[in-house]
């Protein structure tokens, strides 16, 4: 770069009326013209449009611009766009600076004069900084051609299969002993009433045997470090105390096991033993010992399973295994948690035996459920004749902390009601709803069919449920369509519980440095255009971890996430952001504070010929700048955010007369 006076082009955007309606764009552009080094200053209607970009490129060529400032929207929105514009015109993209006069000015201020003044200030600050910018070159880093899918539900299964089928080595990490997720627990799927496990289990089996897939179940993600193309993931698998190769699934161990426990897969409606298999179609398909309840492990002795196992498959010596995975991309597919209906005290779930959740219903109605598919009143086993479904339990309910709609419950209820109708043609079925939401292929038809089959839909959410001595349930509600007060005594009530982000998501989000939206789900890179990406390059999203969605949407999103991951992983190398720390070895005394403060291990003090000096490990550095702000010798700086640049901005903000 020549040391000559920079030649700066400033482009002030109207953004249609978005900016122009509040900020006097022409005045800002005129003002910019007066700033030192500014040789071109233009306004444009949409700087991001082809025309707008072309104008910049032409100026770079014709006016020999060495710096470009665009005052428009957020750099988080269009920063890349304009950097590419500059690059195409042969200007190093890091000689560009963006001023946000839309999101942080025109859209948030009403006083036109003040907003215009602010816009001028912001432009001046950017010009001050841009003068000090230096061209940066992107470095390249080799890509680890493997992917990690976190979560083994339908989202994870399909993502993994897409990737594996594209020839990419894929690790699937599931925290439960088997993959399958919530979908495996469902009896049928709407609106086709396909048998859920029938369509899922072949895919589960595919995962288990795919040559490109390595499945790690009953495992937790301990730590994640690195960056796109080069993540290091530490995975800890819990011991199952059963040797996979030896287990023949004979079940003798479970027979002999003295400990009986509620079976999670069946929502506690059935029992399992402390040595068990989660469900018959589980993948991987072999027994495991529930260490938290095993008599031998918790208290010692027992070992009936081991003594009786004909194949010596029980191994109490097994310990947790920690392994390090090197992957280039990560797909987060950790799904959802069902709303805990006991929170909704007024519906008495947990107290009234005949109040069940929609997921409980799935197990009651399932052929391998507690009653082999027969839906009964839990209190007395009698076939229910009057059944109610209550919608929006834990959804659209600010009191319960979820303003959002869980999207799938309406259809799930229609499905369940339809199934009930099939089993009990004479039963009275009531659905208490807020709004029926059926925006999907075949959904409305399915709903209408339900109505035709005599399912009564009542708009009005009951305030509470009361129980009589016979465990019959009393529901009073207002039909807001007719205004009538309805009193119903019901045999069984199904609560349509909403979907919640899993509790463990917070920790995982922190490990991955992912933002979460206020609803607690992971925030996508852009709500419209980048729904399967995150703010972290190389980390993708699919399924309900992003937001509640049904199975086809999930599978589609998995395809998207997989495609993007594959796009990254099929490259041999990726470009790294050059905004990184740099050390002035003259000043550095090797005190090591930067090394200690760096969470990425990206700066290390090393013995050099000139003594101990800090050195940046460029590929690991994320550019956060903590080291620069901490360095007691002020020997560390961050490119593109140097002290000089920040101070120039500060000065420009406060001393209009001084800019250089």
């Amino acid at each position, binding site marked *: 770069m020549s040391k000559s006076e920079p030649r700066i082009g400033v482009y002030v955007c109207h953004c249609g009326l978005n900016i122009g309606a509040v900020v006097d764009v022409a005045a800002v552009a005129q003002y910019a013209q007066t700033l030192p080094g500014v040789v071109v200053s233009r306004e444009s209607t949409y700087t991001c449009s082809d025309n707008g970009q072309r104008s910049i490129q032409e100026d770079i060529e014709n006016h020999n611009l060495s710096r470009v400032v665009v005052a428009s929207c957020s750099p988080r929105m269009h920063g890349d766009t304009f950097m590419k514009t500059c690059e195409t015109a042969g200007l190093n993209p890091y000689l560009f600076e963006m001023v946000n006069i839309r999101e942080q000015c025109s859209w948030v*201020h009403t006083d036109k004069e003040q907003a215009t003044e602010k816009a001028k200030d912001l432009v001046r600050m950017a010009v001050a900084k841009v003068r000090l910018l230096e061209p940066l070159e992107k470095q390249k880093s080799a890509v680890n051609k493997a992917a990690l899918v976190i979560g083994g539900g339908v989202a994870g299964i399909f993502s993994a299969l897409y990737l594996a089928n594209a020839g990419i080595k894929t690790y699937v990490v599931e925290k439960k002993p088997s993959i399958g997720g919530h979908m495996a627990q469902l009896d049928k799927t709407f609106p086709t009433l396909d048998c859920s496990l029938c369509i899922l289990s072949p895919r589960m089996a595919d995962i288990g045997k795919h040559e490109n897939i390595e499945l790690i179940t009953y495992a937790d993600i301990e730590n994640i470090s690195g960056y796109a193309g080069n993540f290091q993931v530490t995975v800890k698998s819990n011991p199952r105390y059963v040797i996979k190769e030896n287990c023949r699934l004979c079940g003798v161990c479970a027979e002999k096991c003295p400990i009986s426990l509620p079976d999670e897969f069946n929502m506690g409606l059935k029992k399992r033993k402390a040595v068990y298999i989660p469900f018959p179609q589980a993948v991987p398909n072999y027994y495991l010992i529930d260490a938290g309840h095993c008599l031998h492990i918790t208290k010692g002795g027992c070992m009936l399973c081991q003594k009786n196992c004909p194949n010596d498959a029980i191994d109490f010596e097994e310990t947790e295994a920690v392994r390090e995975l090197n992957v280039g991309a990560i797909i987060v597919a950790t799904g959802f948690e069902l709303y805990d209906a006991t929170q909704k005290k007024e519906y008495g779930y947990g107290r009234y035996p005949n109040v069940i959740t929609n997921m409980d219903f799935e197990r009651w109605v399932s052929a391998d459920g507690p009653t082999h598919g027969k839906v009964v009143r839990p209190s007395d086993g009698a076939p229910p004749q009057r059944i109610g479904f209550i919608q929006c339990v834990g959804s659209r309910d600010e009191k319960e902390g979820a303003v959002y709609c869980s999207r799938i419950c309406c259809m799930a209820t229609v499905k369940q009601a339809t199934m009930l109708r099939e089993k009990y043609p004479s039963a009275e079925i009531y659905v208490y709803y807020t709004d029926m939401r059926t925006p999907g292929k075949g959904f409305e038809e399915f709903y209408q069919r339900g109505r035709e089959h005599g399912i009564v839909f009542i708009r009005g959410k009951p305030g509470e449920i009361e129980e009589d001595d016979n465990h019959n349930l009393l529901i009073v509600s207002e039909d807001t369509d007719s205004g009538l007060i309805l009193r119903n005594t019901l045999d069984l009530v199904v609560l349509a519980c909403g979907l919640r982000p899993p509790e463990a998501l917070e920790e995982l989000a922190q490990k991955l440095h992912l933002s979460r939206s206020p609803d607690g789900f992971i925030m996508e890179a852009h709500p419209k255009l980048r729904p399967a990406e995150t703010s972290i390059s190389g980390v993708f999203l699919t399924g309900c971890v992003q937001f509640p969605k049904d199975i086809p949407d999930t599978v589609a999103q998995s395809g998207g996430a997989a495609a993007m991951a594959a796009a990254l992983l099929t490259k041999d190398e990726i470009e790294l952001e050059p905004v990184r720390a740099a050390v002035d070895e003259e000043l550095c005394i090797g005190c090591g504070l930067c090394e200690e403060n760096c969470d990425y291990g990206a700066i290390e003090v090393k013995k050099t010929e000139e003594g101990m000096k800090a050195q940046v490990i460029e590929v690991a550095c994320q550019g956060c700048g903590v080291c620069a702000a901490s360095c007691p010798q002020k020997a560390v700086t*961050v490119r593109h955010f140097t002290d000089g640049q920040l101070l120039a901005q500060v000065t420009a903000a406060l001393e209009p007369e001084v800019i250089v």
Partner: protein
Amino acid sequence: MTFSPRIVGFMCNWCSYAGADLAGISRIKYAPNLRIIRVLCSGRVDPYVVLTAFQKGADGVLVAGCHPGDCHYISGNYQAEKKMKATWKILSKAGIDQERLGLEWISAAEGQRFADVVNSFTQLITELGPLQADPQKIASAKEETADFRIRWLVGREKDLLEEGNVFGEPVEEAVFETLLDDVVSAQYIRNSILTVLKEQSMSAKELAETLEIPSHVVVEHLIHLRRGQKVHMVEGHPIRYEVSAW
């Protein structure tokens, strides 16, 4: 004319700056006094830059980062917190109201909160009125933020308090605070002395009167400064001190 404060904001790219964007996308209105400087992480905000802002005439400085635990860079915001806590100490030495330096956690999803924070901070600074601090004091305080010892201690604070010291012993927060307070106080006096002496040479007694510090304290710090080759003594009655040219 009513006082309209000048506020410089340092927003981290991932949370607070995005929060500010969200406020814009949501068209939430807020006071126009803030000038945002985007940084990648709140941990990048060097106290030296903050003091420069005050020196250049900012009435308030607002630093915002991701919520604890949410830092895009793992723990940069914790570092920011330690740095700003130390900066508060330093500001109070220079007679600057600590409240003029705000530190807030604003997530990318908190557009409304961003606006609320900006409004209430602007309100607060408006109430505090224009910053009227002695330039010499600010200069001395700014030197503090460049001081090796202070920067080192602040940088080590988090690890020391959380993980204990090199001897494997826990470090009590109170002990650390006392040390940091001592260092900040001592260094402030030394910087003040140097700031004054840069203008003209003085005797210890004159320095004490100028700085309104007990003369024996001035003497103690002069000893230290002379040992550190920052000042030297000029023979005569009284003995005066000069800033060393080297």
